[in-house]
């Protein structure tokens, strides 16, 4: 998958002068963004299926406020209003899918405003944000309303009261492990879009096959999870298995939709491997030894901060350059 160039097709009669890279992707930024929106549809469906139609309201609030904030800021700063590129829609959708079921609409709106306002526009808008905007919004909500954001609703088809907590929290605080199969379907407690591995994988594989998301990042994260999570499990089998790590919580959602964000992930192939492995290392450390049951959000944000550094050190050698 070649790197994605943001340039639109120029007027044929004009001579276009531009700096490298000259390879252009088949798709424009706009098309790619709407592909991602499409890929998130299964997760939205699973959220409605397991937690009821009220969740559409939460997701819609996040989207409306994300798009509204972007439009408002672009209007106020007298920049062209570019909400039609779909990037704000994605941020809103992602944020809506990583909050707990029946989350307060006021908080959701606030999170969306913070995501776009502070996480994206303050850095200069699309293409300039260091951190994944949706995760910035989630991190803000986590810090501002720690109780509300960890209040989980029992899914509609819950079989026992254990599912009230998320599988990771149940394991960490009560020592109760959850079987793998409900994790795959999504009949467990958790954030709206993360519970159903099946729905996340459906959208994610669509993105990987179309090449919209680079496969190296989720691959590196999976390898990292197997190495670090599996390593610990081999040392002491009381630690969760890598399979549980893989399906529980928001690992899949994070790996496929969050970590693959173009702007906040490395651009070199080697860099993507380093980035993905780093996320998994931090994730396993937080999940196994940290105070929080889940660490996907913080581990991705943490590695986002390293992306400029990774890019710098994995810069490919210029053709003909002599190793000094």
């Amino acid at each position: 998958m070649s790197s994605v160039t943001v340039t639109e097709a120029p007027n044929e009669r004009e001579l276009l002068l531009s700096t490298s890279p000259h390879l252009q992707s088949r798709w424009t930024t706009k098309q790619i963004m709407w592909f991602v929106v499409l890929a998130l549809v299964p997760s939205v469906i699973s959220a409605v299926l397991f937690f009821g139609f009220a969740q559409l309201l939460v997701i819609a609030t996040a989207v409306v406020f994300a798009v509204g904030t972007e439009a408002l800021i672009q209007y106020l700063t007298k920049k062209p209003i570019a909400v039609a590129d779909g990037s704000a829609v994605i941020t809103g959708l992602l944020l809506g899918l990583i909050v707990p079921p029946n989350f307060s609409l006021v908080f959701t709106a606030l999170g969306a405003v913070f995501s776009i306002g502070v996480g994206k526009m303050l850095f200069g808008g699309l293409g300039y944000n260091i951190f994944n905007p949706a995760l910035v919004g989630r991190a803000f909500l986590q810090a501002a309303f720690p109780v509300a954001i960890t209040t989980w609703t029992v899914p509609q088809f819950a079989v026992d009261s254990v599912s009230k907590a998320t599988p990771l929290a149940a394991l960490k605080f009560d020592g109760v492990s959850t079987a793998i199969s409900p994790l795959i379907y999504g009949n467990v407690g958790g954030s709206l879009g993360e519970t159903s591995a099946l729905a996340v994988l459906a959208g994610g594989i669509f993105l990987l096959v179309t090449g919209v998301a680079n496969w190296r990042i989720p691959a590196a994260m999976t390898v990292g999870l197997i190495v670090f999570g599996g390593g610990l499990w081999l040392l002491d089998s009381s630690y969760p298995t890598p399979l549980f790590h893989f399906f529980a919580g928001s690992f899949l959602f994070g790996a496929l939709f969050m970590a693959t964000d173009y702007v906040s992930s490395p651009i070199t192939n080697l860099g993507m491997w380093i980035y993905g492995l780093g996320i998994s290392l931090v994730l396993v450390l937080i999940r196994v030894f940290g105070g929080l049951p889940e660490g996907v959000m913080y581990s991705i944000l943490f590695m986002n901060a390293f992306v400029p550094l990774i890019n710098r050190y994995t810069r490919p050698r210029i053709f003909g350059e002599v190793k000094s």
Partner: protein
Amino acid sequence: MKKQVSLFTEYTKGLWDQNPVFKQVLGMCPALAVTVSAMNGIAMALATTFVLTFSSLIISLIRKLIPTQVRIASYIVIIATFVTVVDLVMRAQFPELSKELGPYIPLIVVNCLILGRQEAFSSKNTPLRAVLDALGMGTGFMIALASLGGIREILGSRTLLGVQVMPDAFDPWLVMILPAGAFLTLGLMMGGLNQMVLRKKTREERELAARHLQKPKMSLEHGQEA
């Protein structure tokens, strides 16, 4: 001999043009740590102003006696004296406030704002100017800490100076009374203020450029006439 600025400017420069927090980015430690509420911010700023004013006065008075090699040590001794005074007075008179500000009162000793003003100003100026400068800086510090503390208090605990200002329906943002809230608020405030200054500057520059553009044009016309 450099041109002397007016005594009035000596005081007012600390309020905005050289505001210790927003412009010089000095004294960040107390600015971030104690501003959970407006009252804490004001108390901290008052304590700092007291120490700053009196140490500036003393240091300015004996500025010609202090050997250059040991000046920092001498400043610290003088500053520490006044910090001890503040600390003991606060503990005796306002035990609750003293408990809330905790170690940050003794830490005024190492506040770079105070040492910075001694090194940059009172060691080179007359006592009157040094005191005015210190009072100005102290007021500027208070403006910054009170506004920072006010914003954090309103959003983080619904109150301002202990009086509830936000309705019960408003859920307090816990992050605002945590350290992260301090960084967030201060960063956004500084960014906003810089943006304001920048906008004003570009507007002025544009006007200036427009005026300059007109001038050569006129002379050219004159040349053509001749």
